[in-house]
């Protein structure tokens, strides 16, 4: 496009650029700077904070949990989203089904956390169970009630389940749009040639949906690296469920250690950047199509 007065474009962009500069660029640089200072941001301490981030036991647990979230959450939401997208296409009341599955996205993460706190609620064996899960576990399967959020072998998965419940609908909607973009003739031709549904799915549908899948996967990974609300509301990182974002929050607001909090923030940022670059590239490829 040819602008007669190119500076006019800059004028229009200026307010947005200023806001980005003030609220994004400056805080990022400042955080980077604070990560090399001590708790009260008074003395220079070099890489001490980063050494703590990578060597302390509490942080190891947080890293492990974030990795668990990345693997389990992403595969569950994308996998489920894909399956639901394909199946919803063949069902009669497709829009109703899709709306129902998408509904949890409308709830704030904190709200979802509170809802599921009640779902997972634990009461001792001789008391009436008010949590849905324990009510089923005790009432129908006649087991002892389980502290879903306090038992280390299941609590991380319990939290991830909440995240999956919220985000699957989002993935399903995007993947459904991509699925509908596949020309029906291709699938018909394959079926005529004798391929069964499974083969059609794996050999035709999936390869054609690869770009969208890549975008969805990277978006989910970016999301899950930032997970905070669910963990904060439901367990506050206790019982081995700590995640990086929650730890950063605690260091900043409860322990008043600004140096460490900034170091965690920088590490998170560096972890997200490559994923974001991949996402951007894929997105641009998609646009070009």
């Amino acid at each position, binding site marked *: 496009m040819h602008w007669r007065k190119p500076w006019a474009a800059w004028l229009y962009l200026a307010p947005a650029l200023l806001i980005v500069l003030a609220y994004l660029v400056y805080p990022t640089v400042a955080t980077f700077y604070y990560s090399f200072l*001590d*708790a*009260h941001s008074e003395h220079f301490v070099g890489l001490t904070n980063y050494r*703590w981030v990578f060597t*302390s*036991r*509490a942080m190891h647990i947080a890293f492990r949990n974030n990795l668990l979230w990345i693997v389990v959450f992403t595969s569950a939401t994308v996998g489920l989203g894909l399956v639901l997208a394909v199946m919803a296409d063949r069902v009669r009341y497709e829009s109703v089904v899709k709306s129902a599955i998408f509904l949890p996205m409308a709830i704030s993460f904190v709200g979802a956390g509170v809802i599921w706190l009640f779902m997972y*609620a*634990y*009461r*001792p*064996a*001789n*008391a009436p169970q008010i949590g849905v899960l324990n009510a089923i576990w005790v009432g129908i399967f006649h087991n002892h*009630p*389980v*502290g879903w*959020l*306090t*038992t*280390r072998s299941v609590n991380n998965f319990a939290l991830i389940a909440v995240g999956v419940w919220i985000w699957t609908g989002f993935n399903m909607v995007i993947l459904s749009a991509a699925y509908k973009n596949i020309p029906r003739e291709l699938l018909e031709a394959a079926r005529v040639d004798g391929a069964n549904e499974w083969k059609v799915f794996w050999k035709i549908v999936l390869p054609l949906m690869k770009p969208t899948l890549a975008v969805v996967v990277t978006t989910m990974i970016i999301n899950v690296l930032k997970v905070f609300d669910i963990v*904060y509301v439901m367990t*506050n990182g*206790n*019982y081995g469920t700590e995640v990086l974002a929650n730890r950063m*929050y*605690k260091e*900043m*607001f*409860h*322990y*008043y*250690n600004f140096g460490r909090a900034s170091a965690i923030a920088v590490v998170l940022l560096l972890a997200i950047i490559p994923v974001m670059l991949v996402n951007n590239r894929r997105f641009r490829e998609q646009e070009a199509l």
Partner: protein
Amino acid sequence: MSRYRKALAVLSILLILSMVLVACGQKTVTVTVPVERTVEVTVPVERTVEVTVPVTVQPHKGTITVMGVWGGDERVAFQDAVAPFTKESGIGVAFEGTRDLSAVLTTRVQAGNPPDIAILPNPGLLYELAQGGHLIPLDSFMDVDKVKKDYGQSWVDLASYNGHLYGIFYKVAIKSLVWYDPKAFKAKGYEVPKTWDEMMALSDKIVADGGTPWCIGLESGAASGWPGTDWIEDIMLRTAGPQVYDKWVRHEISWTDPAVKNAWEIFGKIALNDKYVWGGTQGELNTNFGDAPRPLFDNPPGCYMHRQASFITGFFPKGLKPGEDYDFFVLPPIEQKWGTPALIAGDVIVMLNDTPEVRQFVKYLASAKPQEIWAAKGGFISANKEVSLDVYPDALTRKMAKAITDAKIARFDGSDMMPPAVGAGAFWTGILDYVGGTDLDTVLQDIEAAAKDAYKK
């Protein structure tokens, strides 16, 4: 533009203006309507803020913002306690309650928009804020000698930092109490134990009779684990004595020291024993501290004893008669030479903005009146000696108030005195990990690692 359009435009602009002002944190919005009449509208800013409207015809002289952790009944009691102040002076008091006080307060302080007054649940936070220069020293306008006379030297010392007085203790509690239902005890022929060994023998007896002796509840949102720290502190005082206790709180001895480990193991003998505690270890982790004493009053009793601070009476089911339906005995001694020390705690009022109205309010809060009003409702003990014992609603509360002033050895709650990364962090999660099954040495090493960093900063 037609007249209608003009009016609509003016009204829309006024609406947007008032919304912007509300969003910018103004608690009072003055809207000037074209008919030249000034209407003052007080709008609630956040969900949790309530504005106390003055009931007299005193001109409204502004509002003081107070931030604290109280909610429910505690918050209502506080608002009743400050109502006379508003009535006499015309200054409103807006209370904002949040269980995550550290986070909310830090944000406001860092943003340069602190509440006028904050009610801190522990002095550790007071020292942290004073060190950061965010608190107004009270000795700049208050008569410290009068405060010393009314409260005693130790309460003044606890609220001081670097030689200046920064806070007034408003609501205090004694923590070393074991609550029980005297009727349940009588029905089973149990007697109040006088030593720790007797208490453990009583627990065994209750188990043998088919009951569960203890109720413990550790859950408390972002603060989960704090009730367990009280157990450890009480046991430390009774096994290691006050001097070692002080060293422990100042981190002059390590968390892995045998004296500390011993205290945890004694706590574990009760807390880790699924037969001793209602709901077992999972029950402890999942039961909120306020709900924990309820099984005491079930029929048949879900448990017989509950170790908790004096303020727990505010959480008991309504309609119970103190002395008849519930009573307490002080946590028995373990080593005879240390007797029964009193573990005490309190909420301290600090000042963050210096204005004449806030100064007036602080002086009011330090006086006997607001303390007497809440004391009469129960679940509140005052550290102010001017408050006569008669205002307390029952003999039981008087007994508690007296236990505070009479204690031969008294120490402030240790976790409240430690730096927040330990006292409101590693110590709390340590309790949860220990009760959850993590081995004790790992737990103590983790707390020690956090302490090493927290104390030196």
